[in-house]
């Protein structure tokens, strides 16, 4: 299915967020995610299902003021 990952269209075959993150090579433990504008806690990755057209944001620590 096609989903939008960090504003870019991506094709994923896995249906859970946990597996899709692996497939998309987001392997760092230092990430946090939001799906369609809502925060998804890490412990919910395995039970969160993705659907066609979902918007996934994957954020990491960054310098800030």
């Amino acid at each position, binding site marked *: 299915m096609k989903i939008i990952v*960090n*504003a870019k269209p991506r094709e994923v075959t896995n249906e859970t967020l946990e597996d899709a993150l692996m497939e*998309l*090579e*987001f*392997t*760092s*433990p*230092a*990430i*946090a*995610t*939001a799906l369609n*504008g*809502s*925060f998804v*806690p*890490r412990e919910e990755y395995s039970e969160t299902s993705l659907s066609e057209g979902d918007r996934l*944001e*994957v*954020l*990491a*620590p*960054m*310098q*800030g*003021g």
Partner: protein
Amino acid sequence: MQLYGTDISSRLLLGTAQYPSPAVLRKAIETSRAEIITVSLRRETADGSGAGFWELLKDSGCKVLPNTAGCHSVQEAVVTAQMARELFGTDWIKLEVIGNSDTLQPDVFGLVEAARVLCADGFKVFPYTTDDLVVGEKLLEAGCELLMPWGAPIGSGQGLRNPDALRAMRAHFPDVPLIVDAGIGRPSDATHAMELGMDAVLLNTAVAKAGDPALMAKAMAQAIEAGCNGYIADPMDPRDMAVPSTPTLGMAELI
């Protein structure tokens, strides 16, 4: 100084953005002796570039204060705060809800609303606000235990645009920690803020964009300490006319 029940001895909070290199950032954190450093969240790239910065933060030994910089709505700020809490393992959040892209001034209406949501959810909110007393009161009612009024627009380095308003905040909120956030350009600006009775100063660009960031970080820390001691020491009032400092009694008659 206590912030949300945590004892903090350094009154300089340092931002981590815009340094020429990670090594310079690391050195500036050291020389500033800051105990709290601000951080942010941005989109991860598949190469895991955020992980390296995360290691640098852990090595610094500082407490991290994640921000919601760039958020223009309550929803964005709240979701960013939730992500930051998980990512950085802290319930501290520097809450920014920006109302105007040119001035980066806070949307104080959205700020109060987001603060209410986040405080109710257990966050310890550090609100980036204006020097408006009524907004300050609303933020405290929302559950904030400290206020971070601006000195001048973010990144402008103009110093304190409205010292009278900060002095009024100090008088109006005698027991609330006040941290000047944004607008500091030079060490004398930081001293000025502390001499007005502010509890701390948060700055980033003034150090990161200095010719020698590590030395400027040290200078800022010294300036903040000087201003703090100066305020506590209770300065004399200015006088219109000269008053001799050397005793006039016992002067010789030489003519």
